[in-house]
């Protein structure tokens, strides 16, 4: 049932190590290989020198580094900075030029997928399809929290995928859209900023019951909650909710790959996102392709207390176990 699935790693997982120059690119690739990854995704705006116009030499060398380790340079992860200018949003021509630049870079590094973002509007996908087809590189629009599949713009994206119906236009599904509860590191950041632990416990209980933000407002007012507490409540009810499975099977032909997001592996499990249920749904929907592990706990655990290399290794091992790979 799961024979068509492959596991990979986004180098974004090693963000802290990269920022602090604790790991080189070669080392990040090597530890991804040690975690038994088959493919790699790289966030261009983060790790590619010379971005957005890197040299062909650099991109080809990256491809060579991957190939020497028998890693597939699977995905060039692009950003669509539609708000990059101070005076106005990018217009449609500029957005398409940005995607074509991504395609050009992706081709040189041997990637078969470009990840782009929701800032490319659904109406623009028809104009991007001929470029993706010429380059023979898939363009996947990433769905990412706070969006969910039932967010209005995603209903439009889904319609555009079906209307265009090109094997080169689709979506990247970040499993963060199914995150249920915040992890300890996230909670601790707010606690360190003075949000009382009993208030946090109250908010978590409400979240677990599936209550809405409105339901906790009286308590926030009663406690004269400060800005951090209010922010925590807003974030919590925007970014997390009890898992509701989506019907994925009809969408699966448009999914270029999954970002299997995770924040904190403990004892072989990720407690923020219900992977057992999600991977069962993905497998039953007949998905063939990459699950790209994306560790994001580094925002809260940036002092090396949970080394990204170990977290990544543990996450891939969990996926293999759940999928019977």
């Amino acid at each position, binding site marked *: 049932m799961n024979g068509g699935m492959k596991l990979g790693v986004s180098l974004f997982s090693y963000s802290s190590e990269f*920022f602090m120059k604790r790991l080189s690119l070669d080392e990040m690739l090597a530890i991804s290989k040690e975690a038994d990854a088959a493919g790699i995704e790289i966030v261009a705006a983060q790790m590619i020198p010379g971005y957005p116009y890197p040299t062909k030499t650099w991109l080809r060398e990256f491809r060579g580094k991957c190939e020497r380790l028998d890693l597939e340079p699977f995905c060039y992860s692009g*950003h669509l900075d539609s708000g990059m200018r101070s005076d106005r949003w990018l217009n449609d021509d500029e957005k398409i030029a940005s995607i074509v630049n991504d395609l050009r870079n992706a081709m040189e590094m041997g990637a078969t997928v470009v990840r782009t973002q929701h800032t490319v509007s659904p109406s623009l996908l028809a104009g991007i399809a001929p470029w993706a087809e010429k380059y023979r590189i898939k363009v996947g629009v990433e769905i990412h929290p706070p969006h969910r599949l039932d967010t209005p713009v995603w209903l439009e994206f889904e319609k555009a995928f079906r209307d265009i119906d090109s094997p080169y236009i689709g979506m990247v599904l970040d499993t963060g859209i199914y995150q249920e509860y915040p992890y300890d590191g996230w909670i601790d950041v707010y606690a360190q900023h003075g949000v009382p632990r009993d208030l946090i416990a109250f908010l978590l209980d409400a979240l677990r019951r599936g209550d809405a933000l409105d339901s906790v407002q009286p308590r926030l007012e009663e406690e004269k909650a400060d800005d951090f507490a209010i922010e925590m409540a807003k*974030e919590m009810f925007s970014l997390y909710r009890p898992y509701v499975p989506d019907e994925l099977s009809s969408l699966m032909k448009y999914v270029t790959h999954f970002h299997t997001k995770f924040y904190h592996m403990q004892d072989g499990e990720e407690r923020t996102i219900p992977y057992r249920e999600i991977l069962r749904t993905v497998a039953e929907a007949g998905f063939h392709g990459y699950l790209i592990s994306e560790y994001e706990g*580094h925002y*809260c655990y940036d002092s090396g207390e949970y080394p990204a290399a170990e977290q990544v290794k543990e996450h891939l091992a969990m996926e293999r176990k759940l999928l019977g790979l």
Partner: protein
Amino acid sequence: MGLVNNQRAYDKYLIWTEGYGNVLVRGHAMGYQFQTRMPNYRGNFLSCVEEFTFTLDGGEIPKKNVELLLNDKRFRLADLPSLFMEYWNVADCAVIEVAKDGGLEGRREIGAVMRLRYGYSGYFGACKVVTSRCSRILDFSGKEGDLP
């Protein structure tokens, strides 16, 4: 947006504590320099830096005295909003050079505030704008000619 999703993990690196000192011209200190990092997991276009202000021992450093050195170029802070083709790679330090006759001596507190627009983030029609703050004590004693 929130503390965590603002990626505040990087705020503390806004002022990078390596490679700072006085700027000598023919043996005379004409100013001082220190390094800054993009407080974000990724690089950004300079046009996304909506505001970049600095303090010395709590007092504001006049913008007109400050230049930002990056990509082998030199920029005035007032020009940043127009620099949408100039990319600050996250692995690179930008040098802040402050004109100050005589430079600095001893331990001084340097503060920085950056308001950064996330150009990709217009989730509900507006870009997320994040304000990062950082303050560091730097000892300028004998710190000359040790610049990047």
